[in-house]
């Protein structure tokens, strides 16, 4: 894993100091708002960002965003402290710090934004920085592949979310979250909004069937897993659902979608957690379980459910970050993360064991830890939920398996007889130990004094509900159904722990489904792209031109059909002799071009057509256009003739095979263009612009040639754009021709 090189610099040098001090000071800064927020205040700041698009950098600080901000900065400081020792000697440590701080910025922006568009930008910042962090060990193919997978899954979800945001903007008349009034449930756009937002939230928070990227994201260095993939980024989707609960929640589809997908994710993930042998993977799946639980309870939406979800959010952040960091120390101190190998480390790594046990007790939901409080409230809310059996059943199974997983990760490796590991077991240095121990102690302290969590849980519950709610957290009050369920959980969990080696072997026989499915999907996309490229990028100029003009012909045909145009056939008797002469001239040139077997004849005949068109311009009084047309035509003939001197003669056999196609294309395009032009004639010409230029050309621009006056004066900016295109085209052609030059001309 990563780099275990010795670290000569104190706390990773300047980059490390910055990375630790920045989140720490932000944490302290956010802490000062706690009294105001706890008293029920909601702070809003507005700074214009892109006023023309209605994007403002509004900051919304309420209970929900403050809870997240404190978790992001607080755990962020502990994780960066850990990293300064864990990765401080890594050759790309500074790069790592930059990625991590970028991520932290994105995450903070995400939870603090009041404007949905700004929120989306930060949402994408977390996606991209997460990509960079998962692929930090970029020389490993697996890390690159997993990073790309996470990027694609969350990125596609992000696009769906963006579409949802746009619809919310249409439905509510603005992008400010605070300004969405009431519920959107009765709006005609509710269903598409709901589906798009949920797609974004479910991919980000790794709900089944989009869960597979999260365990793979464990390719990231362990502090990243601790930070992004347990405590912060993956909670982005949960945050979004919680944040939009007042506007989108409360409907049947909201309830059932969140409760069913959340429940399935929780149970499915906790079963798969037992299957893993890598203790980091065990933790990855328990993270999925926690995310599923949070989604399910936001779906339930009752006062108790939201209160339980907000408490569990804090519980989970504490113990999960602690356990991941603990695993980092174990990995660092023994050289392995294999649950079947690690035994008896307690004597060699006492401080790590302390952190592990504290965190695991909370994860198992044992009293007097904060995890027990969280689980009690989950049960209490589940027992009062509408789909009581389903919610309670899901949370029971998941909690029991969580209990067992806690034992696998944090109990078994430290007890029993010391087994042989790649590195002689030793405890980590203090910067690595501070984080997990502190977070473990938090779990204990908040468990003994649940009141401490109330200043955060109460306002965040209110923020999610959209109204005030009574919140009273306690460790133990009376023997009730929830308490009895807890006892049953411990019993079942203990049994599962005892038989988990058997379960693991049994579950390992079930082949994985989703990840190979992803691979097949990606292969399919690659094959499809390959086929499409082979179809349209043949390398033959003929084919390109054919496809381009065929597309044009179809587009014209579709336009004619859609607009229901009826071309007006002009009266032929109006044509005079000179008109007929030019017409025959052009027709003769066109026919000769089409039917000659000589390239040079074809080019010259095409020139005849062009000159015929120039004659048309002269007849109808546009000398400027006629001169230009004539010159361009002459130049074109000269240019093509120069090019053709070196081309071989046309092969008559080949011409015969393609002539039919070319004829069909030419006739189709010609007919379409003619119909469009005739149809245009039926619309009365608006002469206001012509009159304007006729009147103003001489007095205002001192010129009698209106065409030129328009070009160089009235619309000089357009002309400037056009000549820029001409210059670039010339340079581009030069570069292309020079680029294909053979080495020895």
């Amino acid at each position, binding site marked *: 894993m990563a780099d275990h090189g010795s670290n000569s610099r104190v706390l990773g040098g300047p980059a490390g100091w910055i990375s630790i001090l920045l989140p720490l000071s932000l944490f302290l800064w956010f802490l000062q708002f706690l009294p105001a927020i706890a008293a029920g205040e909601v702070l809003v700041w507005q700074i214009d960002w892109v006023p023309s698009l209605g994007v403002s950098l509004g900051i919304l600080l309420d209970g929900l965003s403050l809870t997240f901000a404190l978790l992001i900065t607080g755990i962020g400081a502990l994780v960066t402290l850990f990293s300064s020792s864990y990765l401080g000697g890594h050759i790309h440590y500074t790069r790592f710090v930059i990625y991590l701080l970028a991520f932290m910025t994105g995450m903070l922006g995400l939870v603090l934004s009041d404007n949905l568009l700004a929120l989306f930008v930060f949402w994408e910042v977390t996606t991209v920085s997460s990509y960079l962090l998962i692929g930090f060990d970029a020389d490993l193919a697996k890390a690159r592949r997993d990073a790309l997978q996470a990027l694609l899954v969350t990125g596609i979800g992000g696009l769906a979310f963006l579409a949802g945001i746009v619809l919310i903007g249409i439905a509510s008349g603005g992008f400010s979250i605070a300004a969405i009034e009431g519920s959107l449930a009765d709006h005609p756009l509710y269903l598409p909004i709901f589906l798009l937002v949920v797609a974004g939230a479910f991919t980000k928070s790794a709900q089944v069937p989009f869960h597979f990227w999260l365990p793979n994201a464990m390719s990231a260095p362990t502090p990243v897993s601790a930070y992004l993939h347990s405590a912060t980024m993956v909670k982005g989707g949960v945050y979004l659902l919680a944040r939009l609960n007042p506007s989108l929640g409360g409907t049947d589809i909201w309830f059932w979608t969140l409760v069913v997908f959340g429940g399935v994710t929780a149970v499915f993930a906790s079963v798969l957690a037992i299957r893993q042998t890598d203790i980091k993977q065990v933790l990855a799946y328990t993270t999925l379980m926690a995310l599923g639980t949070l989604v399910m309870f936001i779906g339930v939406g009752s006062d108790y459910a939201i209160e339980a979800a907000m408490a569990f959010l804090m519980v989970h952040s504490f113990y999960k970050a602690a356990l991941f960091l603990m695993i980092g120390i174990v990995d660092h101190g023994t050289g392995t993360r294999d649950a079947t190998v690690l035994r008896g480390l307690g004597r060699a790594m006492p401080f790590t064991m302390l952190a592990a046990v504290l965190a695991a007790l909370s994860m198992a939901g044992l009293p007097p830890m904060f995890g027990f409080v969280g689980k009690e409230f989950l049960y209490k809310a589940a027992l009062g939920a509408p789909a009581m059996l389903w919610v309670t059943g899901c949370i029971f199974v998941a909690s029991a398996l969580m209990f067992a997983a806690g034992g696998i990760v944090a109990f078994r490796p430290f007890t029993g007889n010391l087994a042989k590991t790649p590195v002689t077991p030793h405890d980590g240095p203090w910067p690595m130990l501070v984080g997990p121990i502190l977070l473990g102690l938090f779990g204990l302290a908040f468990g003994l004094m649940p009141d401490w969590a109330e200043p955060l849980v109460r306002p965040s519950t209110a923020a999610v509900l959209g109204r005030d709610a009574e919140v009273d957290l306690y460790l133990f009050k009376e023997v009730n159904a929830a308490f009895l369920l807890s006892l049953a959980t411990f019993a079942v969990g203990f049994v599962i722990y005892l038989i988990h080696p058997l379960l693991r072997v049994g579950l390992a026989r079930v082949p994985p489904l989703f990840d190979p499915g992803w691979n097949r999907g990606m292969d399919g996309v690659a094959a499809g792209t390959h086929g499409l490229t082979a179809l349209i990028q043949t390398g033959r100029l003929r084919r390109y031109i054919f496809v381009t003009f065929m597309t044009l012909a179809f587009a014209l045909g579709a336009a004619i059909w859609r607009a229901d145009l009826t071309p007006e056939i002009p009266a032929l008797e109006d044509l005079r002799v000179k008109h007929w002469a030019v017409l025959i001239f052009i027709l003769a040139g066109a026919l000769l071009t089409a039917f000659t077997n000589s390239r040079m004849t074809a080019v010259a005949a095409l020139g005849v057509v062009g000159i015929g068109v120039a004659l048309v311009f002269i007849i109808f009084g546009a000398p400027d256009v006629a001169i230009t047309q004539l010159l361009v035509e*002459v130049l074109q003939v000269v240019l093509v003739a120069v090019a053709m001197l070196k081309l071989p003669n046309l092969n008559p056999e080949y011409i015969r095979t393609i002539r039919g196609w070319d004829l069909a294309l030419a006739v189709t395009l010609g007919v379409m263009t003619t119909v469009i032009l005739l149809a245009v004639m039926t619309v009365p010409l608006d002469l206001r612009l012509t009159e304007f230029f006729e009147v103003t050309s001489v007095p205002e621009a001192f010129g009698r040639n209106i065409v030129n006056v328009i070009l160089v004066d009235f619309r000089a900016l357009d002309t400037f754009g056009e*000549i820029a295109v001409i210059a670039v085209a010339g340079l581009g052609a*030069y570069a292309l021709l020079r680029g294909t030059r053979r080495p020895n001309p």
Partner: protein
Amino acid sequence: MTSLIVRAATRLLVGLLLMFSIWMLLRGHNDPGGGFIGGLIGATGFILYAIAHGSKAAREALRLDPQTIAVSGLAVAFLAGLAGLIPGDAIFTGQWLFLGATEGDKGLPLSTILVFDLGVYLVVLGAVLTLVFALEEEI
């Protein structure tokens, strides 16, 4: 192409074409013509020269690289547009100066419009010649 007739005729024609192109440029504001047409005619002159004497000789006659001409034309047009800002008008607003204007005679009209059109002329001349010379040398 080394035909004596072409080479002899070119000697006359090139000069005529270049003078004609400048005349077209200058008259453009009131009569058919302008920078675009002028540039194309000027380019025809040099192309004729290149056909008769080879593109190397044509490049020498041109003295400047055609790419340079095209890009400096763009710069000239842009500067002419910027000049509109000096009296406080919008960018690309034409500015006029009538030298020696009296009652009844407007004198010699000078304008940023003409400078702009000169820029168009240079861009068209440069871009077309860039393309043609590159084609001829490539083939």
